């Protein structure tokens, strides 16, 4: 069987800007959960099977916007094999209130309305009723027997139309807030935020070079391969147990308790292995319906979404409309910028407009800037976070303008960005002053890279580059660690593991104690087995849960030193620990970790280390730079990616292979966003492509190898210098790919995705492309 001590094969390049070298941190051990995942043993949410379990299905609205006049479930209930049907009437009717999701807040009423529609359906796919039956097929038949009368209303499916005064309103009671002040103005615009620094008008007036862009991007989906699922068992004693695929078991617990109006202590969430999330598995969808059905039937109930359900009913990322204008002085220094950002929140307020407004100009040092951001409801599924949410939508417009300015100035795109790169001490448009960041280093590494220095020639070929930023988050994490008699350690953490974080957390624990990664057995605890831990999101797990592991290891170290002192009839201040060996200061006694572990029974019993953290200092942001070469087929408009390099600031890469994996995965999601992916809507607001055949995510055949260069600019705020790496890599690819396509074809493009028909039309509209 696999030895976890074996290391993985060599990966890409790492450029070090002052990080330390460690024994475990920075190596590439085989992940602890790897064998289970390559043998099919790992249990994912959909694999759960309980005695007496029923299968649930959800009836969804065929209309994008309609008032529900009547729901008649009697024919469905009469079908043999059907145990129960639930609708919004089965949800508690409390109004108002808000819930803290760790990652932002949500309005309780909106959240409940999204689980099962109340008086209105607000998007095609909006859940209307749930059925539990003896089999999936009987449940499916029952859906067809639920009679719903709808009064059709006019849908609004794009952000620009939704913002007009004449637009139909989704929520009669919704008014616009300015930052957090209610304007009383009825509108689909839920929120307007503004950042402003300096005197923007005057700075533009005095500028030498000005460029602008107007960009539209389509609604796209996170595209995780595992559909949402949930199994609920509501016991007669009022205890609700949920098995699910979630990015945060405690966040799921909190949502369930709020939606069902029961105490959190009555909800136990047992997180299963999770088949991808990218932000989309932070909200709950089917779990509360499964819970209601379980309570009504006294059976466990499992619900798994279909792929069409996933597309039509779970959080995509907002479509957007963005305008950006930027200016430099004669020497090429940025002097002013302004942005107008409108994001589609979907059916309920809450697009990541704050993040978009913060990220838009965050790569650059600009003394005068203004940003207006709008959170706008439309008749689409409620948007959910998607990897650096809001950043990708704003990165292309800014980078397109930067390329335009570089052209006007006759400067190399990377050199121009370096001239204006944000660095330690730069004040961003939201007023925050940067600590140590690695944006400049990423650009320098890009400039000097083999890829950027290489020649690209041939007709209809072009190169593009871009930089993007994500701020990362800290939040709360808990870790406990039990020392075993053989000197190994069982480590329990609360962060669900989507990409190998059990191992990156365990490695930091091992490093702190001078143990091997293979000596640590990490597992993810359920909500009854570990302290509160926030979501696996915001690029925070290796950073914050890793920090908790470091603190828990320090706790173990303290206790083990005390045990050594007892064993040697000495005192703790006479014992020191380094390189895995405890010894008395006079050198007379020594024992390694494993030897001392064998003596725990004789020195007071088990040792359990524990730590909780809520880091608010040193949450280091991360920058990603892309260089991409493309070739465009002039007859079909198809784009081939010839070469792609991603350079990202990781702080310290704990497990470089999985850091590269994050960089490569984010890059390819960004390439899909750039070239292929979009929700194609009919006029009635129906998604016309809710399958993986027609919603075209990149396949292995669409891509070359994704070259990586990890840039290590240590984060001074973390014990091992870690910055989160999960998200920044998705921000620059659409900008870089679009620049490459523009260079290859001599066109200007301004809508995502860069579909072949759009490229052909742009080529026909422009002067013939300069070959090469």
């Amino acid at each position, binding site marked *: *069987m*696999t030895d976890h001590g074996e*290391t*993985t*094969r060599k*990966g890409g390049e790492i450029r070090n800007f002052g990080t330390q070298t460690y024994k475990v941190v920075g190596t*590439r051990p085989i*992940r602890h*959960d*790897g*064998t289970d*995942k*390559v*043998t*099919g043993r*790992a249990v*994912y949410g*959909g*694999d759960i*099977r309980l005695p007496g379990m029923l299968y649930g299905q959800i009836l969804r609205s065929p209309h994008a916007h309609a008032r529900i006049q009547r729901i008649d479930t009697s024919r469905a209930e009469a079908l043999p094999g059907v145990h129960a049907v639930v609708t919004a009437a089965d949800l508690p009717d409390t109004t108002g209130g808000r819930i803290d999701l760790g990652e932002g807040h949500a309005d309780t009423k909106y959240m409940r309305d999204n689980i099962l529609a109340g008086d209105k359906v607000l998007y095609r796919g909006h859940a209307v009723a749930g059925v539990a039956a003896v089999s*999936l*097929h009987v449940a499916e038949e029952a859906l067809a027997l639920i009679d719903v009368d709808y009064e059709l209303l006019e849908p609004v499916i794009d952000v620009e139309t939704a913002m007009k005064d004449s637009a139909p309103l989704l929520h009669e009671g919704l008014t616009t807030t300015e930052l957090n002040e209610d304007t009383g103005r009825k509108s689909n615009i839920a929120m307007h935020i503004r950042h402003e620094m300096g005197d923007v008008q005057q700075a533009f007036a005095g500028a030498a070079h000005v460029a602008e862009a107007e960009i539209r991007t389509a609604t796209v989906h*996170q*595209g*995780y*391969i*595992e*559909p949402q699922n949930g199994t609920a068992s509501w016991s007669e004693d009022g205890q609700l147990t949920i098995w699910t695929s979630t990015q945060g078991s405690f966040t799921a617990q909190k949502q369930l308790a709020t939606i069902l109006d029961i105490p959190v202590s009555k909800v136990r969430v047992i997180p299963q*292995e*999770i*088949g*991808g*999330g990218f932000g989309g598995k932070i909200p709950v969808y089917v779990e509360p319906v499964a819970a209601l059905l379980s309570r009504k039937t006294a059976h466990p109930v499992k619900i*798994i979404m*279909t*792929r069409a359900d996933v597309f039509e009913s779970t959080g995509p990322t907002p479509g957007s409309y963005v305008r950006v204008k930027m200016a430099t002085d004669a020497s090429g220094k940025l002097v002013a910028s302004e942005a107008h950002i409108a994001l589609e929140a979907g059916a309920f307020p809450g697009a990541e407009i704050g993040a978009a407004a913060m990220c838009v100009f965050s790569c650059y040092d600009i003394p005068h800037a203004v940003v207006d951001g709008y959170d706008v409801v439309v008749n689409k599924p409620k948007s959910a976070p998607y990897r650096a949410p809001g950043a990708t939508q704003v990165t292309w417009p800014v980078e397109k303008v930067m390329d335009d300015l570089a052209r006007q100035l006759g400067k190399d795109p990377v050199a121009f960005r370096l001239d204006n790169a944000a660095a330690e001490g730069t004040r961003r448009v939201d007023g925050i002053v940067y600590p140590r960041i690695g944006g400049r280093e990423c650009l320098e590494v890009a400039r000097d890279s083999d890829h950027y220095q290489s020649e690209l020639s041939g007709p209809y070929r072009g190169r593009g580059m871009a930089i993007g930023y994500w701020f990362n988050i800290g939040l709360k994490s808990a870790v406990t660690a039990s020392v075993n008699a053989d000197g190994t350690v069982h480590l329990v953490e609360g962060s669900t593991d*989507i*990409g*190998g974080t059990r191992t990156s957390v365990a490695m930091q624990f091992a490093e702190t104690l001078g143990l091997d990664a293979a000596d640590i057995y990490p597992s993810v605890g359920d909500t009854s087995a570990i302290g509160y831990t926030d979501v696996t999101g915001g690029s925070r797990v290796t950073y914050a849960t890793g920090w908790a592991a470091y603190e828990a290891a320090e706790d173990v170290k303290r206790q083990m030193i005390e045990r050594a002192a007892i064993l040697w009839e000495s005192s703790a201040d006479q014992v020191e620990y380094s390189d895995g060996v405890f010894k008395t200061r006079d050198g007379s006694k020594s024992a390694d970790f494993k030897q001392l572990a064998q003596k725990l029974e004789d020195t007071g019993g088990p040792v359990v280390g524990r730590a909780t953290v809520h880091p608010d200092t040193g949450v280091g942001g991360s920058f990603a730079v892309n260089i991409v070469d493309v070739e465009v087929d002039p007859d079909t408009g198809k784009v081939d990616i010839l070469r792609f390099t991603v350079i990202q600031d990781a702080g310290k890469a704990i*497990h470089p*292979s*999985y850091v*590269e*994996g*994050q960089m*490569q*995965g984010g*890059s*390819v*999601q960004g390439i899909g966003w750039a070239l292929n992916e979009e929700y194609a809507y009919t006029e009635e607001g129906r998604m016309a492509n809710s*399958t*993986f055949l027609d919603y075209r*995510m*990149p*396949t*292995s*055949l669409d*891509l070359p*190898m*994704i070259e990586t260069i990890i840039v290590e600019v240590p984060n001074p705020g973390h014990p091992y210098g870690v910055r989160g790496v999960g998200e920044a890599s998705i921000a620059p690819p659409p900008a870089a790919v679009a620049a490459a396509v523009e260079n290859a074809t001599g066109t200007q493009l301004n809508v995502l995705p860069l579909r072949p028909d759009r490229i052909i039309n742009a080529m026909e509209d422009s002067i013939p492309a300069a070959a090469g």
Partner: protein
Amino acid sequence: MSKIHVQCTINGEPTEFLCEARQSLLEVLREELGFTGTKEGCNDGNCGACSVTVDGVLVDSCLILAAEVQDKTVGTVEGLASAEGLHPLQQKFLEHASLQCGICTPGFLVASKALLDANPNPSQHEIRHWLAGNLCRCTGYDKIVRAVLDAAGTAE
């Protein structure tokens, strides 16, 4: 609804089961027989998470009916490793960090094995072409392709 009696071989073991005519092989593998290593991602043949072999041919198990495997030989991810240890592809997937969330991994392993059975020395392009029916959203495919190249001994 009366059920159909099916006899087949799964991962080398003679197996029999009862199924409804409308049940896919995927549904029977997962829900009736407990082979949950085979995953469901789309149920319409577009993601490859449910890849299995039937008489050595790579198929999406969501696209064939369970009743169709009468007298046939089915191979799932659970049949790759043996008492001697992991299959070389499984080992290479671990060494190359070819999985993140892992939901697509069983499908990729079954598909890669079918490739190497048919073509023991594939080029990178042949690997990318063969695996284009399997979607992975986490890795960008780079480390998966490298693992298959390494397992085949054709690393470039």
